[in-house]
């Protein structure tokens, strides 16, 4: 008599567990996201694919002058119109996305990894090192990002590796600050004390005890850095100080077609819209991430 009762009690629980597991599987694949998060995810995947495959999909060559008029409106032959020389805007965007996305990925990755490494080092090192590093990097944050980038370009020019380095240096202090505050909080947890009592070294504690527990917020932060770098570098290119011709990222495309503004040509609107969809997509995706990773994005500043 007792067995059925137990099993009928156990069943719903088991069902709940199964449902939870299933949900967590969904969540793992990003399908537990809110609608805006899904839109964000879709946009990000789309732009990554474009950056990867863009030149293969482009109907025309990047420099090929194919249209008869400059600033032609969109047509069946040229879906996004033609640019100031009569080149196909769609093809130019498909090629340009590679620079924008690739440079931003590299710059943000560099900023996030270096920032995380320095933040971890500061948290597990003595007070002296921590203070010095924090003061120095705080001083760097007092230079507005675009000003710092302009100074770097003036000092060292704007080759592609230098743009990447500039972007990384600009956003390193922000990543450092967040990584350090996360690591300092984790550093006083009991399991870290246990590891210390066990006789583990600082490097082991930083890499195996603290780092795994801060990786999620740091990934969200990486997404934000990515958005900042995209905006910074396309802004530089727009000023003519970023990616130099004949190479062109999306910001350069806006610059070179600026004379089409008076006629409202798609050649100037489309690259600008492309940048906006990329950055808004990443922002929507980060914002729909669960829990404390989200709090980062509320206080962040580009």
């Amino acid at each position, binding site marked *: 008599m007792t067995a059925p009762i137990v099993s009928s009690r156990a069943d719903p629980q088991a069902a709940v567990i199964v449902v939870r597991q299933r949900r967590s599987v969904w969540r793992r694949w990003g399908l537990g996201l809110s609608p*805006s998060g899904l839109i964000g995810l879709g946009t990000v995947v789309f732009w990554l694919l474009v950056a990867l495959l863009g030149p293969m999909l482009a109907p025309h060559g990047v420099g090929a002058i194919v249209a008869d008029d400059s600033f032609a409106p969109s047509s069946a032959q040229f879906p996004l119109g033609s640019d100031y020389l009569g080149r196909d805007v769609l093809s130019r965007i498909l090629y340009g996305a590679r620079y924008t996305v690739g440079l931003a990925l590299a710059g943000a990755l560099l900023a996030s990894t270096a920032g995380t490494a320095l933040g971890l080092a500061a948290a597990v090192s003595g007070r002296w090192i921590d203070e010095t590093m924090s*003061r*120095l990097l*705080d*001083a*760097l944050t*007092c*230079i*507005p*990002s*675009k*000003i710092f980038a*302009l*100074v*770097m*370009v*003036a*000092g*060292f020019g704007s080759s592609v590796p230098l743009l990447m380095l500039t972007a990384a240096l600009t956003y390193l202090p922000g990543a450092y600050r967040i990584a350090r505050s996360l690591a300092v909080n984790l550093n006083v947890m009991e399991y870290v004390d246990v590891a210390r009592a066990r006789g583990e070294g600082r490097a082991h504690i930083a890499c195996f005890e603290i780092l795994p527990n801060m990786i999620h917020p740091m990934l969200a932060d990486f997404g934000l850095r990515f*958005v900042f770098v995209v*905006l910074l570098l*396309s*802004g530089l290119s*727009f*000023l*003519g*100080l970023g990616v130099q011709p004949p190479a062109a990222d999306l*910001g350069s495309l*806006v610059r070179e077609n*600026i004379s089409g*503004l*008076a*006629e*409202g040509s798609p050649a*100037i*609107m489309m690259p*600008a*819209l492309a*940048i*906006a969809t990329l*950055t*808004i997509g*990443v*922002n*929507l995706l980060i*914002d729909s991430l669960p829990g404390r990773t989200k*709090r980062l994005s*509320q*206080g962040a*500043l*580009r």
Partner: protein
Amino acid sequence: MTTLIARRIGIAALTLLLVSAVVFSITAVLPGDAAQAALGQSATPEMIAALRAQMGLDQPAYLRYLHWLGGLLSGNLGQSLSNNTPVGELIGLRLPKSLLLAGTAAALSVPVALSIGILSAIYRGSRLDRVLSTATLAMVAVPEFLVATVAVLIFAVKLHWLSALSYVPDAPGIVPMLRAYAMPVMTLSFVVVAQMARMTRAAVIDQMSQPYVEMAILKGASPARIVLRHALPNAAGPVANAVALSLSYLLGGAIIVETIFNYPGIASLMVDAVTNRDMPLLQACAMIFCCAYLILVLLADVFAIISSPKLRRR
């Protein structure tokens, strides 16, 4: 309280010193270039060497830095390389214009942003809040030149209300001036408003998890009263910080906006300085921007100290 404020000012001054060292070392790491740039490609090595000696470029870097810093402190900003006028004169001409633009944008965006932020904090979780949150989230990520081009497209090309991409110098009367300023100010405010509204909302909501707010809820106070009477006074410090940080964004945004609208401010002066590799001008402009940032943050800090009874009595 005064010692606390004095300490903040001291830290800001020290930071400015560090910043000046960073700016100088980036721009002066290739010393030959300034003389080379001034003389052009056809200059002989002797001419370059002579000019370098004349400009003091043959001295060791730390001496040049001290010399430059001394000039900065005494108001002597050096000579612009590209058009041979004192840097101070060039900046004196442009700075008021930039301040006017930034001031107008700030005066417009602060009230709007604070109302959006506080409104969404009051109705947290409602449909209004969700719409505002998503909208500001998207606005934060929009590049300025998209905002500017869309504004030009709508107001100049389609509606013919405003003239595109042209700044009318010393426009007589109020209407032409409004027409000249409307689009730059709108573009500048766009991203700043979104940024500030999000940070204000976060600062107010941060207070909402405090025990005294729970008490007010249990007492039966309305959401508006809880936010305006209980949470907001305590969030004054963080909100001031949010305002200062967002306004500091005006400094960076000004670079794109002044360039796209052909506005003769200090940011477009700096872009020209980068293009011409005019280092003295560039260094001075960079220091002005960093100064402005530090002053904004310092003001927010002082405001936070004054507005918090706990810190005020120290």
